[in-house]
Each structure stands twice: as C-alpha cells, then as structure tokens.
C-alpha cells in the first residue's frame, strides 16, 4: 500500500459558497416534490381505498411502480422515456417530476395506513352532524390522518433530500450535481464529496430537528 496522495482542501473551501447555494436548490426541489407528492399521494390513497375500479387500478399501478423500481430508474424514465415522446424537459423538471412521482407512491401507502387507522365512526359522526362528505374529510379525517403520518412524512422528506442527489446523474446542478461538476474540474473528487457529505448530514439533522420542534408545537394537546 503506498500513500502518495496529498489532500487539498483549499479549492473546496473556495467553492463553498457555490456548494451552499446548491444545497438550497436541493432543499427547494425536495420540499416542492414533497408538497406535490403529498397532494398526489392523498388522491392515490383515496382512489386505492374506494375509487372506481379503473382509477383504483391506475393508483395501484402508480404506487407499486414507485415502490418496486429504483428511484434512479424513475428519473431515467422522465428524462429518456419522455424524450421518446419528443418531450425534452429541463433537468430541473425531470428531477422534480421524478421525485414527486416517487414521493407520491410512498406517501400514498402511508396515507392509506393512516386512513384505515381512523375509525369509520368518525366519518359517520361528522356526517350526522350535518357536514358534507368533503367537509368531513377535510375537517375531521385528514387532520387525524396527518397526525398519524407525521413521522413517516418527516422521514419521506429526509428521503427526498437524499434521493435528490440522484440528480447528479441526469445533469442537474443541485448539491450533488454541483459537487460533481466542481470535483471533475479540479480532480479533488474525494475532498469535494467529503464536504458534500457533511453538508447533507447537517441538512438532514436540521430537518429532523425542526420537525421535532414542530411536532412538539403541533401535537401538544
């Protein structure tokens, strides 16, 4: 074993502002994909529980594809696959759609578990108090489901941040992509990726910390 490599950290520190800016892009795309994923995931869960047959099949197909194929495969689908239809999306849209697709699939299963954990009597009680079906869902059922899926939701957000690093492969400049671009310019690959790993670690810890604070504030009663 011969060790003739000297570490050069200075080029990395000089590019630190770029890396930090890119990590904001990471956060932005992850949070956005979570919001879209929650909206679609709720619909998928409701469709799978009690939607009309063809729609329930579509929902099941979406959920099982998202859960049983690699996230990178899904990103490839949105880049090369849609390219075959002549739809050439920007890298940003590819990543956002890929992450949202994946989030929606995983969240739908969490929501389904949540919906099944809220007793039917809650819905019937709300209906007999004169609420419409939509009102009962929005005011009674979904807040309770939200409480049940809060922790899985936080985990999924962390997961989305980690997953967004795949954007590096489709050429999007979020934290991992920016790191790769800078690393191959200077060939300081190890140093750049070590710093990127540290930034990811801090981001994940921040998200978990904030979500714990929020949970403490939201679920006090």
């Amino acid at each position, binding site marked *: 074993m011969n060790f003739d*490599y000297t570490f050069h950290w200075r080029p990395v520190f000089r590019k630190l502002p770029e890396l930090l800016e890119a990590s904001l892009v990471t956060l932005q795309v992850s949070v956005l994909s979570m919001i879209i994923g929650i909206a679609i995931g709720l619909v998928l869960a409701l469709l799978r529980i009690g939607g009309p047959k063809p729609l329930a099949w579509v929902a099941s197909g979406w959920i099982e594809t998202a859960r049983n194929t690699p996230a990178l495969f899904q990103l*490839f689908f949105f880049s090369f*696959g849609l390219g075959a239809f002549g739809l050439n999306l920007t890298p940003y849209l590819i990543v956002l759609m890929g992450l949202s697709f994946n989030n929606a699939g995983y969240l739908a299963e969490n929501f389904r578990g949540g919906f099944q954990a809220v007793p039917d009597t809650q819905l019937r009680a709300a209906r007999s108090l004169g609420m419409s079906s939509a009102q009962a869902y929005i005011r009674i059922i979904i807040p309770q489901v939200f409480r049940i899926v809060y922790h899985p939701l936080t985990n999924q957000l962390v997961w989305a941040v980690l997953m967004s690093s795949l954007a590096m492969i489709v050429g999007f400049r979020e934290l991992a992509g920016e790191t790769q671009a800078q690393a191959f310019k200077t060939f300081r690959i190890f140093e750049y990726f070590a710093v990127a790993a540290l930034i990811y670690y801090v981001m994940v810890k921040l998200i978990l910390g904030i979500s714990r604070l929020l949970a403490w504030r939201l679920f006090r009663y």
Partner: protein
Amino acid sequence: MNEPISFFSGFGPKDLWYLAQAAWQTLLISVLSISAGTVMGIFFGWILSESKVVGSITIGFVLDAFRSVPLIIQLVLFYNLFNVIGLAVSPFTAGVIILGVYTSALVANVARGGIESVGKPMRRAGRSLGLSYFQTMRHVVWPIGLRAVFPSWVGVALGVLKDSALVSVLGHPELLKVARDLITRTQQPLLVLAVAGAFYFALSFPISRYAAHLERKWQS
C-alpha cells in the same frame, strides 16, 4: 462502394439476454451486500441495545451518519478513498463493500428494535430458568424479536436491492447501467426502460407481497 455505417441498431433478442445478465449482476450485488450487511447489522444492533451510552455515542453516531448521507455520495467518496490509499478495488468489490456497510447501518436499527421488543421480564425469566446469556439470546430473544422486525428487515432488503442501481455510477455493468448503454445504442428508450423496469419489478414485487402476507399472518 462505401456502405453507410450506422451506429444505431434496434433492440434484439441478444440485448434481452444482455439485460438478463445485468439483472443477474444486480441480484449478485444485492444478495452479497444484504447478507454481509445483515450479519454486521445484527452485531451492531446487539451492541447498541446492550451498551446504551458508549454504543450510541460511537457506533450509533457512525451508523447514523451512513443513514444521513446519500448513498451515491458515499459510493463516490469511498471509491475514491480506496484509490487514494492505494487499494485497487474493482467497482464491483467497492460497490458491495459500501452497500454492505450502508445495509448494516439500516439493519442495526432494525435489529436493535427487535432485541428491545423482547421485554426485560421475558429475558430475566429465561435467565432464571438456568439459560446462559447467549442461550437466552438464541432461544428466547431471537425467535420473538425476529417475528417483530422481520417485515422491516424485508423493507430494508428491498430498499438495498433498488439502491444497488447506484453502483452504476462506479461503472459496474448492473441493470441500470446496461439499460442506459442500450438506450444510447438502440435509441429506443421506452422499450429498454420497460424491460429493465420489468426486471426490477420481478425481483422486488414478489418479495414485498410475500412479506406483506407474512406480516398479516403473524399479526392474527
């Protein structure tokens, strides 16, 4: 007379075989890293459950770091580290090692949960029946804890199976790398992706269904 040379050719039966071989590589990487990771993970989980303070500060911290950094970053980072310290490892070996350590970080949590799901009174009862510490572990904690966490272990294993796709960044010809190469050659992305996706689905879906079935059976 010069024939025009085409670099593109359609997707043929040979390519299907090519993808099947790549799927075999994916399966190989996954099985190796899942088994190595599970053995290590159970060991780490046992340490975490037995030594609360020292264990969680040292091993717990390191394993948590592996769970909090994207796998793709870990792969590039450690593959380069191996090169930096002069260890010439193939992408395959590097992929299995890194994926194995990553798996062990996930399994450690599961294993700790399993050990802790067996109550203290149960273990004391085992000890007071005259079983040694390791006998209690083997005949009391293992069978009960395994039932509690087997579904989560399957979840971890399936996750690793899918994450093995990332070994493609190191250049090993596993399923997704080969699919990407074929797309470049055949210019038929939908067909190639559909076949590759079908391979992943065929590997993952039956296992996840079987695990869900076991979970239901054990709950009743």
